[in-house]
């Protein structure tokens, strides 16, 4: 807020003399308006992109009829959805039924408050940014359960339960991995995390501690994929099993809202992953950070870089969706609890060790002498626990089959 205020005053010196309520309203309303317009129009692009990408991956053409190359297809779809009747089936809990898509959308849109589009282009630089994203993003789970419950339909409820189980499970590895960049930077603010990656491609967190951070990125991305209910983890809305899962009973505008929320969540996850691992709004090379002709003021390209990187990740999500079949519920839980969680735990401990006892500390490295065996012992202990758990699992399975 203060940074934005300073920026506003810098742009408009007269603003310093305006009444505070007007300034606050401006600072709050303009980014909100920009964000909301951008994000509510974003799904139009994502859905078109998704349909085109899926079509090309299946050697089809995709939408081609509405507008040149089908560019207006999603616009037509949106108009159709907006004008369709919203059907309330018999026995739905009307209040919750209407509230659910709103809540899902709140969960999807609110993280935009802290996403930095540039060093000064951020609606609010919360000092608990990462924590805020995690907290507000899990609001949408409540919305999903609400939708499933209010629909008064077994398939909806199944879908909601599955999504609750899935999101609760996958939030743990995702949040643990969130700790890794936070530990390195020592701040929860998304802008601080981005600024700590100054200096082009090699200083992005993705490439730090070489074999460790890429693994962390993959774990975070997979967990995030599951949190957004995207394929191959889209069991809450598995068509072949649950009709359409939690939004079976929704039609018209409410359905469009769920759709919008899903695609917005995809973008939010990609943006957060970008900030944490891919340098956020920083360019791959510092020279590409600004653009401008000689003699004219340089235009910062931060928003472009964040946008570009996040959309690339969105593309990877779509790519994965059209590559992998849907996983089973037990496989889903297996991946969360037996694969991602142990990896995340070990990564947190190891990176914690690196941060606590950096390799470049001055003088005689007592801390390393003490710290490294300690870290190794900790890692070994975790391994041992996992081995024990696996052995127990195998014994139990043998007992059950016997």
């Amino acid at each position, binding site marked *: 807020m203060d940074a934005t205020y300073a920026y506003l005053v810098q742009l408009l010196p007269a603003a310093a003399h305006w009444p505070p309520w007007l300034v606050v309203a401006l600072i709050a309303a303009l980014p909100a308006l920009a964000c909301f317009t951008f994000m509510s129009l974003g799904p139009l692009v994502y859905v078109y992109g998704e349909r085109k990408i899926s079509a090309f991956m299946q050697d089809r053409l995709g939408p081609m009829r509405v507008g040149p190359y089908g560019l207006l297809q999603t616009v037509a779809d949106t108009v159709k959805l907006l004008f369709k009747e919203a059907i309330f089936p018999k026995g739905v809990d009307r209040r919750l039924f209407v509230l659910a898509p709103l809540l899902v959308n709140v969960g999807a849109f609110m993280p935009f408050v802290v996403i930095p589009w540039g060093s000064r282009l951020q609606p609010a630089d919360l000092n608990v940014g990462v924590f805020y994203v995690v907290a507000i993003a899990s609001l949408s789970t409540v919305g999903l359960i609400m939708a499933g419950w209010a629909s008064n339909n077994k398939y909806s409820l199944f879908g909601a339960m599955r999504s609750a189980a899935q999101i609760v499970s996958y939030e743990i590895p995702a949040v643990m991995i969130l700790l890794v960049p936070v530990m390195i930077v020592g701040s929860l603010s998304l802008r601080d995390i981005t600024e700590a990656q100054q200096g082009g491609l090699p200083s992005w967190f993705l490439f730090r501690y070489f074999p460790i951070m890429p693994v962390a990125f993959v774990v975070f991305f997979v967990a995030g994929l599951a949190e957004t209910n995207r394929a191959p983890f889209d069991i809450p809305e598995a068509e072949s099993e649950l009709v359409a899962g939690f939004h079976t009973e929704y039609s018209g505008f409410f359905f469009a809202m769920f759709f919008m929320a899903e695609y917005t969540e995809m973008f939010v996850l990609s943006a957060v992953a970008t900030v944490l691992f891919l340098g956020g709004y920083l360019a791959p090379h510092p020279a590409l950070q600004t653009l401008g002709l000689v003699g004219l003021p340089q235009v910062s390209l931060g928003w472009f870089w964040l946008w570009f990187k996040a959309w690339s990740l969105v593309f990877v999500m779509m*790519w994965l969706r059209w590559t992998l079949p849907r996983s089973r519920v037990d496989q889903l839980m297996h991946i969360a609890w037996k694969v991602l969680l142990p990896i995340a735990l070990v990564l947190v401990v190891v990176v914690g060790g690196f941060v606590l006892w950096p390799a470049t500390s001055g003088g005689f490295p007592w801390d390393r002498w003490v710290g490294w065996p300690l870290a190794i012992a900790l890692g070994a202990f975790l391994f041992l626990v996992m081995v024990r758990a696996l052995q127990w699992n195998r014994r139990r399975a043998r007992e059950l089959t016997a």
Partner: protein
Amino acid sequence: MGQWFKDVWEGFFTVLVGMRITWRHLFTDPVTLQYPSVRWPLPPRSRMRLFMKYEDCIGCGQCVRACPVSCISLKAEKRPADAPPIWAANGQPIKLHVSVFDIDMSLCCYCNLCTYPCPTDCIYMTPEYEFATSDLTQHLYRFAKKDAVFITEDPKKKAAAPLPAPAPAPATPPAKAAGA
């Protein structure tokens, strides 16, 4: 433990393998044909809508008997004795007046069995397939014409007869006629 690492690595790696396949397909040409503007070239002898050339029909009714779903209805009566003689294109004399020749394409099973027995090859399948209508009765095609112009000269005799007079070039035209 080793098995666990192996499984995790295999899971990750096979995902990459699958992604490589879809990535390659991203750049292969789509196989979709944009139907009304681009059409599939029909294979030779494709069987679509039936057509009957009324001027050649001798009213023998063999197609009606051949049809397994009875979609052809034909009504023919003897031509009056004093009517001028007419022929089909292949030289068969037409002795019957075909007053009704209806084909109901909504019943047709496109088996092509009606075209084989036709002695004058006047009924055949066309490659025309875009005849969907919102009203099934429009699939009843009536081929009998009131104002048909028949061949009133025997085509066989015409072919057999030597070419009439002109023949300004002396040698070649008769040779051609003989060859035909």
